[in-house]
């Protein structure tokens, strides 16, 4: 217990990872094992699923029932939505975005991937790299998840064979060579028996790498944020009407990139006015520097006009400011994307509207093929499009910055989020 008390716990890092797959891949078993072995399942939760498993006439305690939270999911035995799960070890705290793996749930995979530092991709050792594997790898790559851990599961069913593992590894590397460079790791596991999940396997001497949990605990993630380009979308203007803070005008927001210090020369976009950072304010006092993803308030030396939706950026590393923007889009609505259609846009803290100018191609997310003849973008499709916005946006490419390079499209009649887009 001592490791949980105070200083150790207070200094832990947070790792967000996503898993994709179906019950058949052993995904739920793997998550169940991580939660169970890290003592994150409580007895009342375990007893509840034990009881349900018996009532459903199952032979074993079905750990999938832990993650399938909605009645419809339990009835159908499938994961429909993204479920968030939490566990902690003495070294790190983890958030799992657990998503379904089938193609009709691509939008849920994209949602889970959007905030992840790492993706766990499961491959059944008996089946090797299949279409679903490619799709998960391609989605992870489009969403620019910095680290991918490929778990070759069910090694117990292939007699813990090194050859099988190496051959699957080779197939996956061939697939990954078509994707933008990514930090790749491979682990042979048996989620059912616990080989290389939390503890090293005694059945695979030939594997000298870390167990999955060890890798999750030690993966270097501090450089996943962009600490080069200064980006601060103004979220809210704090103006106290009090004598104590008479001239205080704080620009509240969450840093989206770079390191800010008092004295830094900045530009307010899209207006282009320049100023200097006077102070970085928080409830707990002023800071000498602040970086992504901290929520702070900036004050400026000059009385310049800045409001919600504006971007405060470093003068030497400015984002692009423009209205004609090219996007990779994942469509999330039953109503198809309409060329010439108008949509609401949310980008950083800016609300705007846009018109879809053209669809350049649809991307086959199992093969990466670009189909220029098929430009109908429907539910779960991924494509390349061009839009024009009503007002200039200050943006970066998604590969440069996941915060300033992403936006969502909103149906103006239903207000539903219909598209998730990455700026090219």
């Amino acid at each position, binding site marked *: *217990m001592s490791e*949980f*008390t105070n200083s150790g*716990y*207070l200094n*832990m*890092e947070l790792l967000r990872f996503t898993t994709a797959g179906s019950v058949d891949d052993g995904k739920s078993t793997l998550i169940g094992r991580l939660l169970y072995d890290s003592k994150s399942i*409580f*007895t*009342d939760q375990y007893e509840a699923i034990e009881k349900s498993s018996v009532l459903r006439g199952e032979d074993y305690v079905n750990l999938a029932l832990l*993650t*399938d*939270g*909605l*009645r419809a999911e*339990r009835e159908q035995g499938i994961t*429909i*939505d993204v*479920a*968030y*799960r*939490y566990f*902690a070890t003495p070294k790190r*705290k983890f*958030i799992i975005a657990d998503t379904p793996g089938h193609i009709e749930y691509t939008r849920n995979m*994209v*949602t889970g991937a*959007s*905030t992840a530092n790492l993706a766990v991709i499961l491959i059944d050792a008996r089946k090797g790299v299949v279409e679903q594997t490619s799709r998960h790898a391609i989605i992870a790559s489009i969403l620019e998840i910095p680290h991918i851990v490929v778990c070759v599961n069910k090694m117990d069913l292939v007699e813990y064979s090194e050859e099988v593992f190496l051959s699957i590894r080779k197939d996956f590397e061939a697939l990954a060579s078509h994707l933008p460079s990514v930090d790749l790791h491979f682990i042979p596991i048996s989620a059912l028996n616990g080989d290389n999940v939390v503890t090293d396997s005694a059945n695979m001497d030939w594997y000298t790498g870390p167990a999955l949990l060890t890798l999750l605990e030690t993966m270097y*993630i*501090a450089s996943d944020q962009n600490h080069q380009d200064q980006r601060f979308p103004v*979220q*809210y203007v*704090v*103006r*106290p009407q*009090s004598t104590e*803070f008479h001239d*205080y005008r704080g620009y509240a*927001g*969450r840093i989206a990139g770079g*390191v800010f210090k008092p004295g830094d020369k900045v530009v307010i976009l899209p207006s282009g006015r320049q100023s200097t950072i006077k102070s970085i304010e*928080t*409830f707990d006092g002023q800071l000498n520097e602040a970086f992504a*993803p*901290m*929520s702070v*308030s900036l004050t400026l030396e000059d009385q310049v006009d800045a409001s*919600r939706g504006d971007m405060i950026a470093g003068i030497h590393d400015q984002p692009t400011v423009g209205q004609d923007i090219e996007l990779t889009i994942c469509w999330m609505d039953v109503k198809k994307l309409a060329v010439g259609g108008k949509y*609401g846009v*949310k980008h950083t*803290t800016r609300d705007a509207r846009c018109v879809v100018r053209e669809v350049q191609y649809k991307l086959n997310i199992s093969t990466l093929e670009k189909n220029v003849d098929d430009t109908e973008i429907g539910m779960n499709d991924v494509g390349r499009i061009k839009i024009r916005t009503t007002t200039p946006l200050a943006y970066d490419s998604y590969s440069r910055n996941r*915060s300033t390079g*992403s*936006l*969502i499209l*909103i149906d103006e009649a239903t*207000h539903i*989020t219909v598209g*998730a887009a990455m700026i090219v």
Partner: protein
Amino acid sequence: MQTYGLTHLDELESESINVIREVAAQFERPALLFSGGKDSIILSHLARKAFWPTRIPFPLLHVDTGHNFPETIEYRDSWVEEIGARLLVASVQKSIDAGRAVEEKGWNASRNVLQTVTLLDAIEEYKIDAAIGGARRDEEKARAKERFFSHRDEFGQWDPKNQRPELWNLFNGKKSQGEHFRIFPISNWTEMDVWQYIYRENIPIPTLYFTHLRRCIERDGVLLAHSPFLPTRDTENVDEYQVRFRTVGDMTCTGAVLSPATTLQEIIQEVAAARVTERGGRADDKRSEAAMENRKKEGYF
């Protein structure tokens, strides 16, 4: 080269402040649902940080069942004064008196479900378009699928199968007339995170969370506080126990745990060693496997 990284509590704090500021920016009339429990306490602490040095630009709303622990009300009033917030109280007793809600009958009667009526009435009365709550995804399986920005239709209902996708840190709070949102800024916190944060930030909490002697009855394996609100059977004994509470809800349905913990550090050790979830002591969740999902669909917190 210098590296920049945040601890997980700093990252969670920053995420929550970001969500709370987004509420103030996107909605006309938000309110923060305040129960006097630890989750709504850290929520109001985070709101105070988000808008410093101004006051929280929206009121706290307490849905008062009339079955509160007196310690909760005492704490509520001193905390509201300390942070300089405005407090609105919506009364379940008033809903009952007005015939809008009917008291449950039987041994396990509770006003927990009735709170939904009072809450939805208060949302209409004050024209609240965003009700900020302290629910966490680790608490209960239906809550694991909840969004930060959770849409409610004009009847206050939640449609879990048809939720808006929520990507990156982009929160879509657009809605039609009469609809509202429930906002959950501490979705990603666990019980342990909350306790560690209370410890780190030195936030005052109600005395109920610390050990004390209390007259309780044991029912279905749960220790319930003896009070005028809880009907007791002749076969049930009222005994004195050394207890504390892991959650603070109504006197009629919040289970006490045997505990000698007198300090936050001792509580944290207990939480780390606990083998039962904090809601394991909540009689209201035990009614059926989908008890929480059903209540949430109807408009519960």
